[in-house]
């Protein structure tokens, strides 16, 4: 079989790349190991033991970042709509009410109107007023899409501009946990992307959750004639004279002059002998645990009307693998019920994310693994009671997924979520014809990885010399 291009992985970046290539009549196939699309942002179901029937859950999706209002132009989300020829209305976006960064002595709220955060900083850190505006200008003027910039430490840049250490920690907290492959710090280009995505633009959630997005992408792929194969793990990327020429799936070989891999840089090196000889990218250490609670009713708005709480129990934010299985000293607490319209009927849902430690989870034998997961859920529930005064809703159902769950269903080494600390910003690898898309091209989250798939397909599949 001969194709113009092969895309490895049907996560957000792979689907977007496949759509772009097929749209312009490239013969393209997406090869996916799992039985369903979505990758790190997929979905699953659990039997509901109390009531019978089945409950559906999203894997990721706390929030779709980069919120825009209908008709807003020149923003990442509007670019994505245009490039994939999707309509704004199809996403059925429900905007957040507001979110907050909750530290012991301060709390900062932010929403889809940047003024809120600006006012909060001015009120709570009046001395930093001018400095914060300096940072805002620096972020606004920075061209994060320049594919040639190299790593610089966000902490260092922040310390040059802002005096108050607590404010620095608070600004960093959501940005790190929503997208840093680096421990306790992040690349400044990545900081700028995240600052714009979270603070300038904000959060929303498609009605119906991640399935709404995946369905849109799958329908689009079909309509432009893209091919996709599930339960089709790529076991090897075949090279000849330093050039990628195809892939192996079991005994079958598929050939194409362009291969776009979304599985991660170390993961790609692992199945490409010739790449492995040239580089040994580190496996990202950041991985997480997620507890999901289904409540008998939605938490009343008097008790909590925020959408996401970024909680930290001290004035210093630690972002690194947990020392002991999981780290309850900080968490992301997401209330999917608090996206507009804030209806109060029906069951409620809360999702709580902790930083975790892959190797400890990996080594746990079965019974202890289940016990540990129960411990996580208990801790998360305890935290919820601490943060929401008067919380007395009944938990009908709970589920916890761990770093090993992530590894088992996405094949990211060590359950890494934000990929390697080595990124390939222009998508190129030392192997001609083999390109990296998605997380390890340096653009992550749902919107980021979709845009990565689009721009890398454009650059290497449509404009590239090989195609």
């Amino acid at each position, binding site marked *: 079989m001969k194709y113009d291009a092969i895309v490895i992985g049907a996560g957000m970046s792979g689907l977007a790349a496949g759509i772009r290539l097929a749209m312009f009549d490239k013969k393209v196939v997406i090869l996916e190991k799992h039985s369903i699309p979505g990758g790190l942002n997929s979905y699953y179901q659990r039997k509901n033991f109390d009531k019978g029937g089945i409950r559906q859950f999203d894997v990721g999706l706390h929030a779709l970042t980069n919120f825009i209002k209908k*008709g807003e*132009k*020149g923003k990442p989300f*509007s670019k994505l709509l245009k*490039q994939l020829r999707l309509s704004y209305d199809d996403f059925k976006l429900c905007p957040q009410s507001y979110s907050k960064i909750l530290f012991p002595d301060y709390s900062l709220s932010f929403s889809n109107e940047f003024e809120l955060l600006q006012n909060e900083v001015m009120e709570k850190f009046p001395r930093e007023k001018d400095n914060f505006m300096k940072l805002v200008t620096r972020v606004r003027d920075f061209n994060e899409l320049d594919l040639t910039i190299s790593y610089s430490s966000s902490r260092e840049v922040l310390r040059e501009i802002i005096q108050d250490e607590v404010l620095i920690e608070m600004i960093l907290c959501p940005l790190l946990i929503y997208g840093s492959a680096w421990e306790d710090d992040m690349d400044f280009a990545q900081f700028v992307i995240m600052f714009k995505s979270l603070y300038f633009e904000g959060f929303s959630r498609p009605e119906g959750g991640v399935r709404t997005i995946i369905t849109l992408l799958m329908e689009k792929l079909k309509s432009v004639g893209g091919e996709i194969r599930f339960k089709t793990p790529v076991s090897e990327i075949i090279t000849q004279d330093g050039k990628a020429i195809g892939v192996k799936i079991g005994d079958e070989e598929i050939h194409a002059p362009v291969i776009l891999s979304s599985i991660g840089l170390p993961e790609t090196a692992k199945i490409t002998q010739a790449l492995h000889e040239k580089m040994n990218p580190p496996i990202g250490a950041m991985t997480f645990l997620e507890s999901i609670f289904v409540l008998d009713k939605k938490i009343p708005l008097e008790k909590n009307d925020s959408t996401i709480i970024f909680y930290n129990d001290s004035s210093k934010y630690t972002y690194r693998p947990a020392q002991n299985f999981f780290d309850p000293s900080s968490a992301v607490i997401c209330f999917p019920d608090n996206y507009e319209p804030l209806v109060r009927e029906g069951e409620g849902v809360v999702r709580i994310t902790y930083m975790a430690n892959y190797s400890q989870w990996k080594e746990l034998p079965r019974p202890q693994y289940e016990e540990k997961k129960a411990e996580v859920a208990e801790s998360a529930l305890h935290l919820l009671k601490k943060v929401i005064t008067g919380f007395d809703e009944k938990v009908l159902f709970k589920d916890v997924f761990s770093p090993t769950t992530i590894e088992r269903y996405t094949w990211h080494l060590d359950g890494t979520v934000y990929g390697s600390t080595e990124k390939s910003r222009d998508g190129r690898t030392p192997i001609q014809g083999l390109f990296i898309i998605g997380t390890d091209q340096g653009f992550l989250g749902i919107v980021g990885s979709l845009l990565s798939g689009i721009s890398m397909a*454009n650059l290497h599949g*449509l404009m590239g010399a090989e195609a």
Partner: protein
Amino acid sequence: MTAANVRQIVLDIISDIAPDEDVSTLDDSKSLREQLDLDSMDFLDIVMELRKRHKVEVPQEDYPKLATLESCVSYLSPKFA
């Protein structure tokens, strides 16, 4: 094919790529980018659509020739001849 036809072909493509844009009020001598919300990704789409719909090839070094409607027409007309 007349200049008016070529102009219409380009307008049709732009309307499909950027459905929210009003192309009826465009000034042919002014840069498209300044009048519409078009970025380099959209210009790539114009080129791709020209290839897909009309088998017209625009090499990368010629992209600047698509800057205004006027320049599009004068650059593309010979290719449609």
